[in-house]
């Protein structure tokens, strides 16, 4: 029997004085893929933050005790001023350079695989100087470093070009084939949602 990796019951979230989510109930089956859709301002990101325990909410969010979550936030703004290199950022989570190289290949630095060792351009670049797409890939790599069995992806392909977008979703499909992996992702792209999601959660304005 399939087990639930996440159970949400009677979830209500007040954000800046108005109720964004009202009495939401949800079961997520382990190893499934769930898409969260809805117009801007319908509370998708806020919903994620509640799942991660980053904000206050009413109701219950229960993760299975074996859940190991990797989180890719929506377009992070990192100051150009911060002298933190990509390598140093990834080292905040993983000491083993082989593992770092491995996930960098996974998230699409593949074509330049040799370069990761020799021409270390990406690794020595400041995190804040990366393009939007590159930063998104690095955040994806960061999430994968913890060897998670749940991925929470907040518009993972925002800012990534079309070929990169395909790489991303192919990557998810491949990762799922290889291991037990539950994916919950926010997206505006209905084509992607219909292609990959087993379950779709639609958040609306009207409550």
């Amino acid at each position: 029997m399939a087990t639930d990796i996440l159970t949400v019951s009677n979830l209500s979230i007040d954000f800046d004085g108005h109720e964004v989510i009202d009495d939401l109930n949800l079961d997520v089956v382990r190893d499934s893929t769930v898409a969260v859709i809805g117009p801007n301002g319908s509370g998708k990101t806020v919903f994620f933050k509640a799942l991660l325990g980053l904000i206050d909410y009413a109701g219950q969010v229960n993760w299975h005790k074996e859940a190991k979550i990797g989180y890719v936030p929506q377009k992070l703004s990192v100051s150009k001023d911060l002298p933190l290199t990509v390598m140093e950022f990834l080292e905040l989570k993983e000491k083993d350079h082989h593992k770092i190289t491995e996930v960098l290949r996974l998230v699409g630095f593949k074509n330049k695989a040799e370069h990761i060792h020799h021409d270390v351009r990406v690794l020595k670049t400041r995190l804040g100087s990366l393009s939007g797409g590159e930063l998104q890939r690095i955040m994806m790599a960061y999430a994968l470093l913890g060897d998670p069995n749940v991925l929470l992806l907040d518009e993972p392909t925002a800012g990534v070009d079309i070929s990169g977008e395909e790489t991303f979703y192919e990557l998810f499909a491949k990762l799922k084939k290889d291991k037990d992996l539950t994916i919950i992702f926010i997206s505006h792209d209905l084509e992607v949602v219909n292609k990959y999601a087993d379950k779709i959660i639609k958040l609306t304005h009207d409550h």
Partner: protein
Amino acid sequence: MITNLIILLLVGSLVGAASGYLGSFMVVKRMSLVGDALSHVALPGMAIAMMLSVSPMLGAFTALTIAIVGIWYLAEHSEIYPEALVGVFFTASLAIGLLITPEPELFEALFGNIETITISDGIAILVASVLIFVLTRIISKRLLLGIVSEDLAKAGSVNTSKINLIYLFLVGLVVALGVKFVGTLLTGALVIIPAVTAKNIAKSIKWFQIYSIIFGVLSVVMGILISRLISIPSGPSIVLVSIFFFLGSYFVKIAK
């Protein structure tokens, strides 16, 4: 009193190194001004300590700890950083400090006097510096992750609130260490300027921290030597040396 110049320079180096290391986080946390204003809180603490005949450094540290818990509380409980409030509060404590510090000690408290550093001050500085380096090293990854993204840190089960409090406590400690060398008006500068200097030339966090420590040490050592050589107070001398390095790093940066 420590009269041996070599020992004085060694103790000063510890203060410079600890200030530089902690300052590197302060600058990228965008708390430079808080670091500077914070040092003014030390004055009333020192004044009260002098009245009670206990170590001024201890008085400074006590006052700083109270202020830090206040800053931490405000930062945790409001959306925007309460910079204006912090400015008002710290200026007020400086004004009160000026009124209650006994006249003969006022100049010394404001600008530092290395002639009055005792052996026990030296030992306290040694112990505190080691504590600062060890604790900062332990929390540094979590601190950095919180600087990149508070959400990412919390999602990785980092208690950012606790980490920030430990960090601010260490800043209070380092500012207290600096008061005898550079005085309460300028000790914030010792935390901020070497770090800003390092940021101008560093290409990675590792070198940012190393440069910051080096500039902290060089500023204190050269500042003390110059103050001895031409008989000026150590505080302004140390701060001006650090600003000299800052200007140098700025030209290196714009020349690139």
